């Protein structure tokens, strides 16, 4: 077996050294009736690399990959072009096969990357500080709500109707068990986001308001106004960014008054991956540092006075503080953070701005074309690279029919909001720098053909 270096001779010699007759002597503590006498039945035995490769390749071939079809999905996961050097670098064994940097003297590579990552996230979000990453955007959002409760010592969170419904689901699921109070505003097909409703829902019991920016329908809320209203009642503004590329074009949430900014970092470096692993981003005001969840990397010096980096403030964390920890999170999303950080380093601020401008331009091209289809209307007054189209019929069916024509034509609001009425004709369409004119034309042609019967 190719991954097991012990030879039969080694095993014999080692068993003799440990004083066991057979390896089963080492499993004496396992109750005899539970001990398996051989490989579990009904499962295949070991297989060659070639055989496994064939099996997995056949499964992969059953999926329609985004690169092989006109592709317009977003809704919290975006397809961007990742430079080839990113994947090359994260595959270096020294990054890929290292553990959490518990021994900083021999983990400066990972640690310096995390310090750079934290700085990048903080600057991107416009926050003072950031942590070393969370599981993903949705769990980071829940952690932000918990943290806001710790900071404000209040327990009621208001969720904008523009928050990604999966994020809302995660929050409500968790809150059901922690008994936190969650006020979820409804989602409606309006050209403008629900800023007024959010502001109206804030009261003195409110720990935070959670607002996505741009929101799940592609609209852009007025964070500054919401922040002002929240702060007036002693509540925090938690901004949620599911498309960090947008921040190359529109103002950083921290600069608009958000107290905590969380997000999904998948857009940069990580890729679609059928939903995971992804990368939770978490930034906030410096004064909240000891209430933050997740790992933090900090600068220090070594015994010779040289700059170095360590994991720090671990007194917040579960392995020290146990049941009093700020979170039970242990693993972060280190390798995804590395990929994000490399991609953002390659871009730089100006590159990110260019990338964002290109995304927006491509989206304008797409929506110009798509809204020329009779019966198709654009919901949004403004958008970055994603917006909501109103179709003349249920978008769920349309998406299915498009897939049958090898077009991945967006996310239906019916799938995202299965229990909400009145959203069924909404189709969320995302466009990035990877979207070509031919993609747009194919999509438009097929959509038109479905909707108004023009032959494809």
């Amino acid at each position, binding site marked *: *077996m190719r*991954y*097991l*270096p012990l030879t039969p001779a080694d095993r014999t010699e*080692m068993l003799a*050294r440990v004083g066991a007759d057979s390896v089963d002597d080492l499993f004496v*503590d396992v109750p005899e009736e*539970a001990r398996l006498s051989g*490989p579990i039945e009904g499962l*295949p*035995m*070991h*297989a060659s690399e070639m055989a496994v490769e064939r*099996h997995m390749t056949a499964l992969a071939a059953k*999926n329609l990959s985004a690169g092989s079809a006109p*592709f317009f*999905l977003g809704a919290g996961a975006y397809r961007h072009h990742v430079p080839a*050097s990113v994947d090359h670098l994260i595959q270096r064994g*020294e990054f890929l*096969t*290292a553990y959490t940097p518990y021994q900083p003297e*021999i*983990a*400066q*590579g990972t640690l310096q990357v995390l310090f750079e990552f934290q700085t990048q996230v903080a600057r991107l979000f416009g926050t*003072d500080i950031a942590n070393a990453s969370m599981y993903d955007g949705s769990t980071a959002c829940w952690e932000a709500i918990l943290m806001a409760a710790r900071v404000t010592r209040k327990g009621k969170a208001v969720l904008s109707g523009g928050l990604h419904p*999966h994020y809302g689901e995660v929050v*409500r699921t968790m809150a059901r*068990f*922690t008994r936190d109070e969650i006020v979820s505003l409804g989602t409606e097909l309006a050209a403008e986001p629900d800023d007024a409703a959010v502001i109206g829902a804030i009261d003195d019991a409110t720990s935070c308001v959670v607002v996505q920016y741009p929101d799940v329908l592609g609209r*852009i809320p007025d964070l500054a106004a919401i922040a002002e209203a929240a702060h007036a009642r002693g509540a925090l503004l938690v901004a949620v960014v599911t498309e960090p590329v947008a921040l*190359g*074009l*529109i103002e950083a949430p921290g600069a608009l008054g958000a107290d905590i900014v969380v997000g999904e970092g998948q857009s940069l470096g990580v890729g679609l991956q*059928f*939903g*995971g*692993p*992804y990368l939770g981003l978490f930034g906030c005001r410096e004064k909240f*540092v000891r209430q933050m969840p997740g*790992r*933090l990397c*900090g*600068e220090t010096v*070594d*015994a010779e006075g*040289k700059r170095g980096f360590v994991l720090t403030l671990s007194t917040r964390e579960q392995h020290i*503080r*146990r049941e009093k920890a700020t979170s039970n999170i*242990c*693993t972060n999303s280190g390798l995804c953070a590395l990929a994000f950080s490399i991609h953002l380093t390659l*871009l*730089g*601020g100006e*590159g990110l701005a260019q*990338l964002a401008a290109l995304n927006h331009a491509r989206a304008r091209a797409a929506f110009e074309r798509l809204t020329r289809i009779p019966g198709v209307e654009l919901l949004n*007054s*403004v958008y970055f690279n994603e917006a909501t189209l109103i179709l003349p019929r249920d978008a769920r069916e349309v998406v299915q029919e498009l897939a*049958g024509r090898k077009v*991945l034509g967006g996310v239906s609001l019916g799938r995202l909001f299965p229990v909400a009425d009145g959203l069924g004709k909404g189709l969320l369409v995302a466009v990035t720098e990877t979207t070509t004119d031919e993609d747009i034309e194919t999509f438009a042609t097929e959509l038109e053909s479905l909707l108004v019967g023009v032959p494809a």
Partner: protein
Amino acid sequence: LEEPLSFELGAEGKCGVDFDAADRAPAAGLSKFLRKAPPALPGLTEPEAVRHYTRLSRQNYAIDLGPFPLGSCTMKHNPRLNESMARLPGFADVHPLQPQTSVEGALEVIEQLADWLITLTGMASVAMSPKAGAHGELCGLLCIRAALDARGEERDVVLVPESAHGTNPATAAFAGFKVQSIPATPEGRVDLEALKAKLGPNVAGVMITNPNTCGLFEPDLKRIADAVHAAGGYVYCDGANFNAIVGKVRPGDLGVDAMHINLHKTFSTPHGGGGPGAGPVVLSEALAPFAPLPFVTRGADGTIHLVEEENRGEGHAQAFGRMVAFHGQMGMFTRALTYILSHGADGLRQVAEDAVLNANYVLRTCEDVLPAPFAKSGPCMHEALFSDAGLADGISTLDIAKGLIDEGFHPMTVYFPLVVKGAMLVEPTETESKAGLDRFIASLRSLAERAKAGDQSLHSAPHFAPRRRLDETLAARKPVLVWKGDAGEPAAS
């Protein structure tokens, strides 16, 4: 050689990415939202970036460079096939919300992996979406909460042995439970009688690590489970150490109700310097109905379905909700399934046997120079536990650990579990060769001898690492978490 921060290397306007020109200006309506200037992020061209990260990487120790015997972390070889399979466009370039008809292969990966996990553990079901071990623990406890809710019971205590991973009590608290501790026996096991004494109508369940953090199998687990069940509670098993027993015994046969599986431990997905992990949770019949959304089921006709909010219907009415956006750690699923298929049922059993043999070999070849508190109890499982009792005055576990760095090895886990003074927990895993272990053992023995002889140079180890010992107190006292060097506050150098 020192490597500057990327911010120190970069320059305004440098960029390692080229773009097509944007052919349309921002929409007029967007003007009030536009930022005034690009984010203050200096860029690097590709040659500079490749060099920066290549050089940084070389300041890391990694499993690709040598043994990484961190107890309870299971740092085993990461096969490269797993990486190449996870990068197939059919897996890596697929959106989580694509129509099901366009992702049938991806759903099949999830289903096949789920089937293996269920079969290997002898459980009824598995929740695939938890993002890591601690997230899996949370999932398991939420299932217990949901099951209790369904029974209309308000049990609010979870019993946790004092040797548990820190995540266990943190998770219990996060899930809204009160934690009560259970002591260990002098042999390093859960004290069955002490546990029984705490059982009662307020006890929701118990969280047990098996094999436990002393590297020992809990022989009483079935009896513990029976007692807990009899008292109306559930048994959560921390599966971080499943590597020691995979293919040798099924937790389901021991009465476990929920157990997370760290795909990055037992099934070799890479640790990546601290994640991502993946923590599917296998569930007993009693807890299975409460597993969170979304999940994948195989119908009687063999077809595979994704169950989400929109189609949960009556059949899954008890599912407690959604723990994450999307489906979980797909990239880790492809790697883990690749690994599992490579090993097969026979290979996985051999994994456990070799992991346990390697640990016992370390235990028996070092117990004469380092105290091994539970060595007399019999064989260990996948990790060997030592203590720093008996070293010369002032020389401690930390010094041994840092000394190992100078010998070219990553240290073992130190000061954990807490039940042993100056604990050193060595987990070689099955992917170390005998020759490699012999070199490690020779180094460990030599360090133990030096420590006993009072070799004070160990205090200043490591001497041959990229950094000498780092001042962690300074870092925590005045946290510097972001670089501000360009704001007139030069970073320390």
